[in-house]
């Protein structure tokens, strides 16, 4: 009986460990492959390395906005560690503050999609408003590990 309980506990630990590892890799993938990649497109247009294109800008803002809808669910209790993560422990100490930053990012990207800036002059302030969210959150909730 005791062995059986140990086995159950071990499986439970393993499953939760795997689940948390999934949360860590999922949230990293979203941030890098969706948000980071979109930011790459937007920043290149802002820097003039790429011609400004309204459709491309709106698509990038929309991709970011989509991420904000699920991103907050990827920080379950227990996923503070257990993988290669640069999430700060402050996220779990202040989950409301973290979610508020995420909500602000959601609002700003939704407003950017709605604005659909017609040209680069209209785009620049909208881009600035959205881009400010990155460091506003990282300042508090991300630690440097490399």
């Amino acid at each position, binding site marked *: 009986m005791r062995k059986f309980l140990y086995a159950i506990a071990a499986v439970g630990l393993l499953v939760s460990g795997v689940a948390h590892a999934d949360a860590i890799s999922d949230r990293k993938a979203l941030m*890098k492959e969706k948000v*980071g*990649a979109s*930011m*790459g497109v937007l*920043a290149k247009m802002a*820097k003039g390395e790429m011609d400004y294109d309204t459709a491309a800008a709106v698509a990038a803002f929309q991709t970011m906005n989509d991420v904000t809808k699920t991103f907050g669910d990827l920080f379950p209790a227990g996923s503070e560690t257990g993988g290669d993560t*640069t999430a700060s*422990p402050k996220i779990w100490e202040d989950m409301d503050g973290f979610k508020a930053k995420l909500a602000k990012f959601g609002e700003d990207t939704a407003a950017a999609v709605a604005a659909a800036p017609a040209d680069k002059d209209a785009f620049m302030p909208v881009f600035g408003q959205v*881009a400010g969210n*990155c*460091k506003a959150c*990282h*300042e508090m*909730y*991300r*630690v*440097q*590990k*490399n």
Partner: protein
Amino acid sequence: MKRLAAALVIMAIAAAVIFWVLTMPQRLDATVTANADAGDAARGERMFNAGGCASCHAAKGAKGDDRLKLGGGLALETPFGTFHAPNISPDRQTGIGAWSGADFMNAMLRGVSPEGEHFYPAFPYTSYARMQPEDIADLWAYMKTLPVVEQANLDHQLPLPFRMRRGLGLWKMLFLSDQPVVAIASGDDQLVLGRYLVEGPGHCGECHTPRNLIGGPDTSRWLSGGPAPEGNGKIPNLTAGAGGIGSWSVKDIAYYLESGFTPEFDAVGGTMVEVQENMARLPASDRDAIAAYVKALPALDSQ
């Protein structure tokens, strides 16, 4: 036996005298401080941003005009104790409004207070010592234009041996120098400017260079990063060695300082956010010079 005791007493007195003389705070020569009160406030704003004064001396998280209220703020937790950044606003009672330009220059270049005591090197005068006196005069002129904040200083919380400031005189003999760290061929004005901004006012080495056991910068590992002095995480290696930023171009570094975005469009985080926002306020030519210098650093692998 009596003779031995007498010899020991004499040796102890001699040691105490030597310690006292060696650790005496050294003020600057009057010729250096002659123009300390004749600076230009408009030029001083550039030094204020390069020096990141607000990052520690304004209230934590201050944005916009609140950055200019230097009533003291940050509690810096170090292996030696907790240091509280003092009030450096022009308030005459609680700030530094009663100081002279020469007092300010002695603080910045020598780490010596108007009362003739050593400041703790949590105040990064080990970097500021490399600044030009004219730049400090300009900074002083600018700081006198900032808002008066009436706010009493908090005492540092330090264990007993570190409460005696006199011993810092020995520490300064080891680590206080006005000489540049990285050798640069003369004639390259941009690299020389970049070196000045990084090694002097920018005081990048205070975090990005690892410290030895007694808290001095290990200049043999200049700007190669290390464990974060407070909290968890690491301070990045700025050189081109393994674990560093060798893949970044000069343009990438300058753009990071301007926008906060890395070449992979990851965004600046942690305490570097404040630093980056200060760098963004500098003229583009200053950021380009900093980037050129960083790119020219001797490559060191992360440890």
